């Protein structure tokens, strides 16, 4: 450090000294070659390449070879990758897998959730990586046909389980369910789980719960007698949950929805809650739900509500309980009803919002004016513009980016959008998505 300061001082006084310093560097490179960068910077630059590109470009130069693999910390085992590693199109070439593992010794996470056709090879693949990558900590997978001796030592490394895949070859659901439950009993470090119904995480209808102390869970909830009890047990043993994504199906009466709500409100550590209702609900119920959750789950940072309302217009009272969500930073609202600015007044309680995603049947430009006034820290706004938004008011000083998902025909013209950009100094991009085509407006 002292030497550096001294160096700067000399270069301040006489430029000649500075040049001489440069000449002392071991090798001079032209300014327009990547070779001028040291290994650290070179490693940083190539760290944004895909694994495939890294392997293909290993023989660019010795520096590439030295620096291109060190930053690989996550690897995704996909069908495409496995296909390439087959010998004679039949068995997996473990030798090639080992070569990858040796080249990339810093791998920490393996994700094989996307695999469909070569699931049977997963245990051997994971074992190869475990033997060569000593920082391997997390494995994400979909439990299915994976079984056998090898898996026994690997289950405890599995921290995340995705959708249960249905095996096309065997129609024996029971065997597959049993294998799934058997697997769950071995996954002691499991923290994130996607599950179709609650029943899958119980040993039997009246048996013990198999997934406890989760951090994150995504599930469907079917309202019936068993599930009410199961949910109660699940909530009791998963007080640790930080994030829950729950879809409510087969709604019978208002009581069962409120029962579920009562259970969820015991999850006081929740940071993220996403609720989808598959049924028509009236607005009073939504108001009750928001109230119960808001009063109890005080740490919520993200709330997402997707529902079908029986009313055409969102009531003034419906969102009133947003007053209990002062910590909220992200909010998604998807209602198939019309929203006017009065219904959205309660947004003013959520002054910390940084992201807002609104999807209504219809809304007017005044809604956006209220949003602008209510949420001074908003960075990102997503509007699903279905029918009627004919203009966008100035969105000064707020937004970082705006995404508009629009029906094929939108009344918004290029002029409107360019005017919006120039009147909103901080707005950096507007993205319009129509039928998956993206169009960008930016300064």
């Amino acid at each position: 450090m002292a030497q550096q300061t001294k160096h700067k001082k000399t270069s301040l006084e006489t430029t000649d000294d500075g040049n001489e310093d440069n000449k002392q560097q071991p090798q001079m490179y032209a300014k327009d070659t990547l070779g001028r960068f040291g290994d650290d910077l070179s490693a940083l630059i190539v760290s944004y390449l895909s694994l495939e590109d890294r392997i293909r470009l290993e023989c660019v130069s010795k520096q590439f070879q030295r620096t291109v693999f060190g930053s690989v910390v996550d690897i995704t085992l996909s069908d495409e990758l496995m296909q390439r590693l087959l010998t004679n199109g039949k068995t997996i070439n473990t030798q090639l897998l080992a070569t990858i593992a040796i080249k990339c010794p810093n791998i920490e996470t393996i994700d094989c959730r996307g695999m469909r056709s070569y699931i049977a090879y997963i245990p051997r693949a994971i074992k190869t990586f475990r033997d060569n990558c000593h920082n391997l900590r997390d494995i994400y997978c979909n439990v299915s046909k994976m079984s056998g001796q090898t898996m026994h030592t690997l289950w405890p490394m599995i921290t995340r389980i995705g959708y249960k895949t249905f095996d096309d070859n065997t129609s024996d659901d029971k065997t597959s369910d049993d294998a799934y439950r058997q697997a769950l009993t071995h996954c002691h470090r499991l923290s994130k789980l996607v599950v179709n119904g609650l029943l899958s995480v119980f040993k039997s209808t009246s048996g013990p719960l198999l997934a406890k102390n989760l951090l994150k869970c995504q599930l469907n909830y079917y309202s019936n007698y068993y599930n009410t009890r199961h949910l109660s047990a699940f909530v009791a043993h998963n007080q640790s949950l930080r994030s829950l994504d729950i879809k409510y199906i087969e709604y019978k009466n208002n009581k069962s929805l409120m029962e579920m709500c009562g259970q969820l409100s015991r999850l006081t550590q929740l940071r993220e809650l996403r609720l989808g209702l598959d049924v028509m609900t009236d607005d009073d119920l939504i108001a009750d739900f928001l109230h119960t959750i808001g009063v109890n789950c005080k740490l919520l940072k993200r709330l997402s509500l997707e529902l079908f309302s029986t009313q055409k217009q969102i009531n003034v009272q419906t969102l009133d309980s947003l007053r209990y969500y002062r910590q909220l930073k992200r909010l998604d609202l998807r209602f198939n009803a019309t929203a006017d600015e009065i219904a959205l007044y309660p947004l003013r309680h959520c002054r910390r919002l940084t992201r807002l995603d609104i999807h209504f049947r219809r809304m007017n430009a005044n809604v956006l004016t209220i949003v602008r006034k209510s949420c001074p820290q908003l960075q990102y706004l997503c509007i699903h513009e279905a029918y009627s938004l004919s203009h966008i008011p100035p969105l000064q000083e707020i937004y970082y980016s705006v995404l508009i998902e629009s029906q094929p025909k939108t009344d918004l013209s290029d002029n409107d959008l360019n005017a919006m950009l120039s009147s909103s100094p901080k707005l950096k991009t507007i993205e319009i998505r129509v039928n998956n085509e993206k169009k960008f407006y930016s300064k």
Partner: protein
Amino acid sequence: MADNADHIDGDDNEDVRAQQNLIKIKLKSSEGGIYECGLTAAKMSDLVKNMVESLGTDAVVTTEPIILGNEAVTDAALKKIIEWVEFHWDDPPVDHDFEDEKDRRNEELSHWDKQFIDVDDQALLFDVIAAANYMDIKGLVEVGAKHICSKIRGKSCQEVREMLKITNDFTAEEEDAIHKENAWIYAKD
């Protein structure tokens, strides 16, 4: 992107940052050019931030310019760097409450950044990246890195060597051996 060690929340902090950016400090390139830059913007460089903190803001504002002695910090590179930090200083910081913000690493560059970094003069481009690395502006190094990676994605070794002017220092035998080992990745199905 900005490193918010203090967790002061809300509008006040934003205002302080905006106020501070009205204060101009001087940065001196290795070629001797002196350029003005807002204080908050300049502090996106950890090197500048540490200097400002050890010298005190008052000293930095009133006295000599901060000297950036690394040869990559040419006049042209420093001008580009100041343009970048003046655009990005008020970017929202990474919010650690949300897991997906870690994924920003994998995000594509914004339209503005793409236009900013698409420099024809490769010597200047590399100066900007090396200077940003020397000045410890992580966000800008990332922009440069993503730009280079997007240019070499899917290209052959020889194309990459030509594009980035890299000398192949492998012997023919060594290159063959690597090719053989990695043959499976080149195979088309």
